[in-house]
């Protein structure tokens, strides 16, 4: 699936998007897989309460299932307007 990062999450991980092969069942599972990879993921996902997630461009929770998901995005709370 495509994994996207925005704002300081993007800066900490160092790329705006990447293709990830994963069998993760939920967003939390995916986060754990990523954190196990490299310290930069560990740093970006250190405090999940400071993050938001969208699956297929819909805001959702970290316990959301990933069955059939094509795009998962991680970012800080939004500051538009």
């Amino acid at each position: 699936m495509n994994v996207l990062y925005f704002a300081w999450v993007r800066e900490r991980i160092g790329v705006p998007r990447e293709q990830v092969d994963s069998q993760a069942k939920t967003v939390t599972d995916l986060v754990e897989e990523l954190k196990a990879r490299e310290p930069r993921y560990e740093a970006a996902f250190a405090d999940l309460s400071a993050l938001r997630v969208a699956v297929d461009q819909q805001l959702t929770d970290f316990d959301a299932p990933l069955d059939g998901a094509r795009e998962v995005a991680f970012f800080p709370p939004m500051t538009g307007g």
Partner: protein
Amino acid sequence: MRIVVQEQPFDLGAEASAFASGRSDMGAVVTFTGIVRDLAQGDLDVMEIEHYPGMTEAALTDIANQAQGRWDLGDVLIIHRYGRMAPGDLIMMVATASPHRKDAFEAAEFLMDYLKSRAPFWKKEHTRGGASWVAAKDEDEEALDRW
């Protein structure tokens, strides 16, 4: 309904004027315009806005549809810029038209409250001293509770 997400500046005067014209069925038009504020220190050089192409348009359309479902609205307009802006530049605007002023006001406030915390935009302030991401305010999240 019109939803615009663009990098280039928009013309508030032309947009407001076009939105309010020919509305003999709507007695009330409300607009909100967001403007890049200089920091207290007065040293903001650039406000940079990042967004999530695709999701942004979907989120704004969803917010506008919710407003049209809750209030008696003849029309809704949302324009939001991304990219680099200077202090005093217009960031975004919403406009609502209704037969009733209360509906026009409430819907515009609802749009702003949701747009602030639920549309995927992120602001970064560039100053002489460096750059930092704007933190979300608790009061913006709390503002959603009233709807």
